[in-house]
């Protein structure tokens, strides 16, 4: 429990300093104005969504290899974090779109594939609920992860593969002015702390539930 509390304190502190930095320290973008600051939340959430999915994928591979329940718990906890980050991406994006494009949603390849990825994340948990016993559920969900993982690179590279309207940073993150770059990095760090906090909490609860099932 000490690790979870430690990550919790770290996450709250990191998020508080990030919000202060976004609202009071970072200058507004000349072209877009205040709405551009949504990116300091939207982009780190998307990166952590991919990262957590990758961890879940490794957990699924570990379960298929070793068949140990702790690999399954790791995989499910990482998928939960990925679902949380994906929800943050899909909740914040439309507000930027409404202010910048005048529309809440456009069926652009990147937007559509992100929605598909979010539905894959959701169906992973639906699949786990479908097999409540402790053996088939982890096995099917690990196999499901292998197919679902294909959506991650497809979503990320959809901007390059198909022409869409989703914004892309020209020149990469190195091209950002210093203040914007440091705010973006603080967003990444605070999301990482948040992901570690939720992951450790969920992982601990899942392992405890599995141990209690074993006692029964």
């Amino acid at each position: 429990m000490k690790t979870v509390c430690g990550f919790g304190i770290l996450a709250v502190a990191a998020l508080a300093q990030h919000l202060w930095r976004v609202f009071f320290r970072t200058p507004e973008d000349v072209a877009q104005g205040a709405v551009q600051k949504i990116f300091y939340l939207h982009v780190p959430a998307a990166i952590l969504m991919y990262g957590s999915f990758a961890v879940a994928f490794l957990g699924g591979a570990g379960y298929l290899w070793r068949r140990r329940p702790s690999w399954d718990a790791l995989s499910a906890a990482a998928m939960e974090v990925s679902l949380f980050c994906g929800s943050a991406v899909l909740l914040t994006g439309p507000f930027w779109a409404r202010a910048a494009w005048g529309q809440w949603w456009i069926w652009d390849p990147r937007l559509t594939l992100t929605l598909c990825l979010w539905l894959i994340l959701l169906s992973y948990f639906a699949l786990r609920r479908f097999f409540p016993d402790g053996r088939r559920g982890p096995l099917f969900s690990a196999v499901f992860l292998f197919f679902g993982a294909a959506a991650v690179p497809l979503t990320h590279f959809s901007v390059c593969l198909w022409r869409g309207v989703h914004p892309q940073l020209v020149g990469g993150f190195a091209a950002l002015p210093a203040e914007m770059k440091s705010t973006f990095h603080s967003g990444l760090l605070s999301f990482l702390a948040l992901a570690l906090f939720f992951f450790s909490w969920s992982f601990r609860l899942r392992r405890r539930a599995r141990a209690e099932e074993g006692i029964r």
Partner: protein
Amino acid sequence: MSGRAALFCAYALFIALLLGYAYFLWRRGKKG
């Protein structure tokens, strides 16, 4: 919707999502 209103709404919704997920985990922990 103005840019400033969109910014505040997006961050408020994110905080609500964060608290909602934390509450969900807390409830799960209490139930055992």
